[in-house]
């Protein structure tokens, strides 16, 4: 420890020795404070302080994301070999290896580009690097399709950090969730790449060109590869709303994507979002440590469930008839509920507001997803809308408190 401490002390000394290098102080400070809780002491006021700090808070969210990340790695490899029809001959470690080869570069690019921007702003503004991006940097790769080009991830991350966060004043000041800003940016800037059936399974477009085509035309196609392997479950569902659905009815859908598979996550989708189980493990950790708000998570779930049930009752097509609980296991609903909607900065800040905010997010998410099949990823848009409405919800809650106080003044 002493050795490490000396390195940092010397680095600080070197930087401070000249005016020119002084502004690079955040560079060393970021790593210093990562390794050591600094020796800052309280002044007046509360002389003792709680042991919690923002680093620990953020780190716990990252730890909660690890199950999703690990499963995402596995599922990326799994989907790849499923499309190839080689699952039987491939070992577990080959699946992991393939998945890691795809997912880890996404993580590296996301952190690399995001932290690069953060450091530039920290140096320019002369403040220390705040921890907000630690979580965003992990969320971004997990909400990306597996086959997204790395340069797009970099561009989206830089856009999200600069426009989504730094222009508002940095961590704690942003209006929209940073990771979702990155996702929405790609969705709207590169629609052809970010939707359709090809981006969700890594290597799919290559396969389709050569091997896939030959497989489909071979004598026994179903046994090796099924007909629409690249599409997400939501893509298949959305086709119920069009003239030529991929599957004939809800039962066929449920046969293809069973509730158990959807829950466990062995379906195509964004890297980290497919497994409801892993999201729930993360949720359990976040709720156990009190980091995420149970108010948001529970009301978000209820909101989604209510909307899905309403559409169940409406019925009329294969999409609407899918049972509500199965609906909620698909796409980014669980992932968005646990990790995106609970972002304390962009969620509502008041306790009563959190219920309304969460409900709104879940409710709108399912509504957008099901009624406008052009946007199967309705959750992302719904959370962004809820983010925008959060200050208004808070305003209403606080106004209510103010009115109560004014009323007391009048009656007194």
């Amino acid at each position, binding site marked *: 420890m002493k050795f490490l401490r000396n390195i940092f002390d010397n680095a600080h000394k070197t930087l401070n020795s000249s005016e020119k290098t002084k502004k690079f102080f955040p560079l060393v400070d970021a790593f210093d404070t990562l390794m*050591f809780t600094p020796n800052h002491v309280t002044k007046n006021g509360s*002389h003792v302080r709680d*042991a*919690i700090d*923002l680093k620990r808070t953020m780190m716990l969210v990252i730890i909660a994301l690890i199950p999703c990340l690990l499963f995402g790695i596995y599922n990326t490899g799994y989907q790849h070999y499923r499309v190839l029809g080689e699952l039987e001959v491939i070992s577990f470690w080959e699946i992991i290896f393939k998945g890691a080869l795809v997912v880890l570069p996404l993580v590296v690019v996301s952190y690399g580009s995001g932290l690069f921007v953060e450091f530039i702003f920290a140096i320019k503004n002369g403040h220390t690097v705040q921890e907000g991006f630690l979580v965003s940097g992990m969320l971004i790769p997990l909400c990306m399709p597996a086959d997204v080009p790395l340069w797009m991830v970099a561009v989206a991350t830089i856009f999200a950090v600069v426009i989504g966060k730094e222009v508002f004043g940095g961590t704690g000041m942003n209006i929209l969730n940073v990771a979702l800003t990155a996702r929405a940016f790609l969705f709207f800037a590169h629609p052809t790449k970010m939707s359709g059936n090809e981006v969700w399974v890594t290597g799919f477009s290559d396969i389709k060109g050569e091997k896939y085509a030959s497989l489909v035309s071979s004598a026994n196609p179903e046994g090796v590869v099924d007909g629409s392997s690249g599409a997400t479950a939501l893509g298949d569902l959305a086709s119920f709303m069009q003239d030529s659905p991929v599957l004939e009815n809800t039962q066929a859908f449920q046969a293809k994507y069973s509730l158990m598979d959807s829950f466990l996550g062995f379906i195509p989708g964004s890297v980290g979002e497919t497994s409801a189980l892993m999201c729930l493990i993360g949720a359990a950790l976040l709720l156990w440590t009190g980091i995420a708000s149970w108010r948001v998570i529970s009301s978000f779930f209820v909101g989604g469930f209510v909307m899905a049930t309403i559409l169940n009752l409406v019925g009329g097509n294969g999409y609407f008839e899918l049972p509500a609980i199965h609906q909620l296991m698909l796409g980014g609903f669980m992932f968005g509920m646990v990790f995106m909607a609970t972002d304390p900065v962009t969620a509502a800040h008041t*306790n009563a507001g959190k219920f309304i905010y969460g409900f709104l997010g879940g409710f709108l998410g399912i509504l957008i997803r099901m009624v406008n099949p052009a946007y199967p990823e309705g959750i992302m848009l719904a959370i962004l809308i809820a983010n925008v409405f959060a200050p208004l919800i808070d305003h209403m809650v606080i106004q209510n408190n103010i009115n109560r106080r004014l009323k007391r*003044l009048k009656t007194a």
Partner: protein
Amino acid sequence: MKITVKKGLDIKMKGVPNKIIAEGNLSKSFALKPSDFPNLIPKLLVKEGDSVKCGSPIFCDKYNDVVVFVSPASGVVDKIIRGEKRRILAVTITSDGKFTQQNSKAKDFSKLDRAELKTDLLKSGLWPLLRMRPIDIIARPEDNPKSIFISSFDTNPLSPDYDFIMHNKSAEFNAGLELLNILTDGSVHLQIRKNSDEVFSNAKNVKTHLVKGPHPSGNVGVQMHEIDPINKGEVVWYINPQDVMILGRYSLTGAYDANKVICIGGENVNSPKYFKTISGSSIESILEGVEIKENSRLISGNPLTGLKVEKDNFLGFYHHQLTVLPEGNEYKFFLSEGWLSLGFNRFSASKSYPTWLMPKSKTYQFDTNLNGEERSFVVSGQYEKVFPFDIYPVQLIKSIITNDIEKMENLGIYEVSPEDFALCEFVCTSKINIQEIVRNGLDLVYKECM
């Protein structure tokens, strides 16, 4: 009335004072510090070298010169210590050890009316013991408060136990209460706990309220909020129970007798206990013979709201305890004791440390390390858990930071004082100095609106 405070937090610190009252060393030097009184601009009434008696005026409020501050001892004015822009930091008095009184004739106060009593208390120098809410400053003589509050217990960490200190002091306490009753048309509210000493449970001329719950249930602000909340334009006064005794002694003897019992607590004190002392005593004299470890921070007052002091400083006017804590000026490696440690021996109100799984009786080591760095507001809903007011703390703080007076009023700034935010400041993940912000907000509101 029975009050149950649900939100809050009891901070379990090591070094709780033992219930022994030691004869403290008589201080040779005393001081009056204008900085003990928020918003006060003093006007000196003495020069260096003047001889003074107990109760002789030393300085007064520049803008309201009837409010005088008097010497707690007899002797000679030693030094007038000034800081930047010649601001007066302290007036020190070297005691002759005789405590000769300026005047000591007992009066029959029960015959005085309110105006006469006010004049008398102002002249005697006891007036500053009365403080008011809103703003949390010395009571203004021209006000008629709607009620007066006394909290018979202190729930701050390592705080003195008034049940113990004031046992068998009924005569003085009741005499003080009698005076307070003359000052208000409303009631004098005394908040007690279940097992309060009879000096409180049998107190006369008061409305007693039984209070239950964790800190800050002992703060008068919380009690006012529950019993008789302050609206814009209303004024409530409050006073510490030991200060009621000082009033009582004045009523009985006519003497300015600022004797009180304080406790010395904290992990860095060898045998934490209670000491007899006099208001304004030097810290050095109080700590004489008390063993203190190296690298300690001395705090006049409690660990949540007190004032950092050095040995050559003096006990604060409103303080009833001294706290000695280890200074936390060391780096902590992140895995072993720092931000990512398991932290079985670290105290946290958040569930991210295992504190909440530990037995409730466990006490913790605290030092003055910030345990992090100052950040923007990120985590929400954290203050609300320890803030038992029907007020939105974060929104109020933000309105203060942006100097939005109308919003401050609407969000309830008249009901709060910095000490009510002490726990918010303690639990804050972003390490924001909230008490300072609230003080600034109150000062602004006072200047603009009152």
